[in-house]
């Protein structure tokens, strides 16, 4: 059979066309628009005039911007690695269970993940409530008095990080469990014949073989947590928004509250660049380490 190369290419283009169109209209075009907006003084709605790099100069001088960057970085540090390690630990425990027991326990760990953030906020806000919250029992046992956790500046981010880990850990557990299942039992069997202890098995077998999944989870987590908004926004309601402001929250405040679409876009571009640089860097680094 003679293959008609041109025809095949045409068909291929035709087949990917719907995707390219959707991607172009819904992702690429808005992104280009965002970058364009960042060079203008546009309000939230409608066009603005070209101001060149002015927004960027302003951003580097902006106290709030740096607060937002610092807070976002702090939140990432508090969540990404702990969330991954806790996910792996729980997944290893769950994988030792069999049959319906495993399904049940897994379901319990996964349950928080399907809750909307507003429900998560309600639950934890109630549990931490200074007068009636159940968590005030351990808190007062340790600190000697009840503490309004979400109104105490230095406790705010760690508390939100804790809630976030509780909320999103289920998904990581699922990914890790899939990874653990793909490790052949033969390897473990061979190891136990060689009298390897548990720690050695983990260090020499499980950890290296699960590494691709760990790298994936870390990267997903990093991107997700850099874009933190909902939890911080909700928990700070009724308190002091500025000291714990994160980047997306700052973008929201600029664009929607202060009607500065252009400047909001500038901060959004900054976040976009940070996300890309860090996630690409991290993924490459982790992959390189894994291949050693």
């Amino acid at each position, binding site marked *: 059979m003679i293959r008609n190369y041109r025809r095949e290419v045409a068909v291929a283009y035709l087949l990917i066309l719907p995707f390219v169109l959707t991607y172009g209209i819904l992702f690429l075009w808005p992104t280009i628009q965002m970058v364009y907006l960042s060079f203008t003084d546009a*309000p*939230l*709605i*409608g066009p603005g005039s070209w101001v060149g790099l002015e927004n960027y100069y302003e951003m580097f001088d*902006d*106290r709030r911007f740096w607060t937002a960057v610092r807070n976002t970085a702090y939140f990432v540090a508090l969540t990404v690695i702990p969330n991954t390690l806790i996910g792996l630990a729980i997944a290893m425990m769950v994988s030792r269970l069999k049959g319906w027991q495993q399904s049940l326990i897994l379901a319990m760990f996964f349950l928080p993940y399907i809750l909307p953030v507003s429900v998560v906020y309600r639950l934890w806000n109630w549990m931490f409530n*200074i007068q009636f919250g159940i968590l005030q029992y351990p808190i007062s046992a340790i600190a000697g008095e009840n503490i*309004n956790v979400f*109104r105490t500046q230095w406790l705010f981010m760690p508390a939100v990080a804790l809630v976030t880990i509780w909320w999103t850990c289920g998904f990581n557990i699922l990914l890790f469990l899939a990874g653990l299942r793909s490790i052949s039992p033969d390897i473990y069997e061979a190891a136990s014949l060689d009298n390897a202890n548990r720690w050695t098995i983990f260090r020499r077998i499980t950890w290296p073989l699960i590494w691709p999944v760990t790298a994936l989870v870390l990267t997903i987590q990093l991107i997700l947590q850099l874009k933190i908004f909902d939890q911080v926004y909700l928990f700070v*309601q*009724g*308190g*002091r*928004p*500025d*000291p714990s402001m994160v980047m997306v929250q700052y973008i929201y*405040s600029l664009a*929607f*509250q*202060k*009607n500065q679409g252009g400047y909001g876009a500038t901060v959004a571009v900054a976040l976009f660049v940070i996300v890309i640089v860090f996630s690409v860097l991290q993924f490459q680094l982790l992959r390189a380490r894994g291949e050693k």
Partner: protein
Amino acid sequence: MQKFFKIAMLSTVAALSIGAAQAQENVVWWDFLSGGDGVRMKALIEQFNTEHAGEITIQPTTLEWGTPFYTKVQTSAAIGEGPDVMTYHLSRVPLGVESGALAEMSAEDLSSVGLSADTFAAANWEAGQSDGKQYAVPFDIHSIILYYNKDKLAEAGLLGEDGKPTGLDGAENFMAALEKLKAVSETPLSVQTSGDGTPWRVFYSLLGQQDGVFLGEDGTFFPDETIPKAVKAVETMASWVEAGYAPALTEYENSVALFTSGESALHLNGVWEVPTMTDLAAKGELGFEWGAIAIPTFFDHPATWADSHGFAIPNNVGKEVTPEKKAAVLEVISWFNKNSLAWADAGHIPAYTPVRDSEEFKTKEPNATYSILADTAVFDPKSPLAGVASPVYDAVANYIAPAMNGELGAQEAIDEMKADLQDQAD
């Protein structure tokens, strides 16, 4: 003859269809009123629809108060999908005008339905203006008042001959009164001390009582001569918490609960909580006799923060307003003002002077007791940064509320708030 019939029939059809068109004038209405005043507004809308059956029908939608509402108004107006009429905080008019979300109302249109500068308090009418053009018509004046627990005040000997609280004027006297109340009440003064809202309203009132200028003509926040006054206002507020009279780090809802549960003798909050008290008292769940007065004069002269719910028409881009629709919307705005006595049940003071001067309102309690604040009202500063759910409100949550709790010094709070707002304005 046949021709005559034809014309007669055609004209009948035409007349009927015009009639039908008028009969079906729907007015799409957006508001942000939920809770006690939302219920009362819905009753008013129903009354309007009944009275205008076959002519105008209001189709109401209630949206989320604050930033979500104002964002939605702005985005929907930009694409011509906004409502025909909406409630609007007069304090948010500057942002609405700046973002092009509001349509101007002409003096002729307004006077055609009997609304003009003379039918409202001057400061109130002007709060709906920007550059001398009218963008919103006031509907009410709402402010903060001092709620009191009559039983506790009587116990502490703070009720006058007329059964009204006495001896509360002056910052020192107020402290002395709180000291007396401490004997009969664990937390004598319940006031919100976390977040924005009440802290702003109290602060702005105390500033107004000293003739402090929040935003100068030249765009300076806290001009130099105002700074000591602002610091004094914050110190006064902080002293209530420091002395243990007011609770620290208390959010809005909790501050209301402290009073309704009978724990606090005094409560500083907006008039919109009047329905809460009325309804609880009517159900016999309050457990004490309550009242409300205008907030005491802590400093030189009476002044109280105030804002207004008003009516505004969005500048629906690309959507032509027919004369019939315009007439219907004007009728809505005018009718609600003329019937705003019922709105006073929600605690508000009617903006429309004939209603405020009516016998029925003058005997309506507790509104009549505090209605003098309509004349001493200081409205929010005119800036796109000010008004409900604005950067100014955020700044209050960031600096003034922490200062009330002693987390920041008063001077430091004012300095940082000034720097922050100035930074945002420039």
